[in-house]
């Protein structure tokens, strides 16, 4: 069962789609309410998000901080640009590795799909090089676990 797609479009876009067995309202809230975000946006096993600021209004701030409890830490900041409740979120975000990465412009839409929701994330990076770097270093912070597994494979 592969419900997730991850593809590139043109030189600067990355598209992610995923279906959920819940109505758009629930999926939208799980992306905007900090107490819900903290439960799932965690990356590999063992990571938690002790700080989650999500001011879901145009101009509102986003700040996510992750830790693996063993000295590993990572954070992301961003701003909300547009919010159409239960249907669409537009925001920008940047990761700190520790230097900030160029802004990733992200449009997330939630479309009713039968009993569930089809979510589409369309990311726009400033240029092809930035997208390449993002894909090569991992879109998610804290991908060390996957990274190590891959190093073992190649």
């Amino acid at each position, binding site marked *: 069962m*592969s*419900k*997730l797609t*991850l593809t590139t479009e043109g*030189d600067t876009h990355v598209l*992610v789609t*995923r279906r*959920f*067995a*819940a109505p758009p309202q*629930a*999926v939208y*809230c*799980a992306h905007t309410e900090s107490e*819900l975000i903290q*439960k*799932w*946006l*965690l*990356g*590999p*096993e063992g990571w938690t998000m002790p700080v989650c600021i999500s001011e879901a209004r145009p101009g509102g701030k986003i700040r996510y901080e992750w830790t693996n409890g063993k000295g590993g830490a990572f954070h992301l900041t961003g701003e909300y640009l547009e919010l159409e409740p239960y249907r669409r979120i537009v925001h920008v975000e940047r990761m700190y590795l520790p230097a900030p990465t160029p802004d990733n412009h992200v449009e997330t839409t939630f479309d009713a799909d039968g009993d569930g929701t089809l979510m589409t994330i369309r990311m726009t990076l400033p240029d*092809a*090089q930035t*997208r*390449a*770097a993002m*894909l*090569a*270093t*991992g*879109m*998610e912070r804290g*991908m060390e676990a*996957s*990274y190590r*597994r*891959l*190093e073992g*494979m*190649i």
Partner: protein
Amino acid sequence: MDGLDAAFAALADPTRRAILARLAKGEATVTELAGPFRMTQPAISQHLKVLEDAGLVNSRVEGTKRPRRIAKGGIETMGKWLAMLRNALQQNYERLDTVLASMEQQKEGEKR
């Protein structure tokens, strides 16, 4: 992991992606590649060098010709990496499935 950085950087260029797409159909010489791309041979050679350095293309010698072809290993490494990214995202979304299920349950509970 330098190989992966180089591979993704090499693919950041549309001409190089087109060259790779052409080579996916079978090997080709610089002359054969230069035709359809309306580029000079040195320009094509330059792009091929980037692809070769990134481990995505290699060549063999056939008399005076050096046909280029897709380097399977490099492509497979990239494929594995993208699969890994997909898995990491999938892990997050499987957790979200659980969160959504418990939200539904809570709502049901409130109705009663």
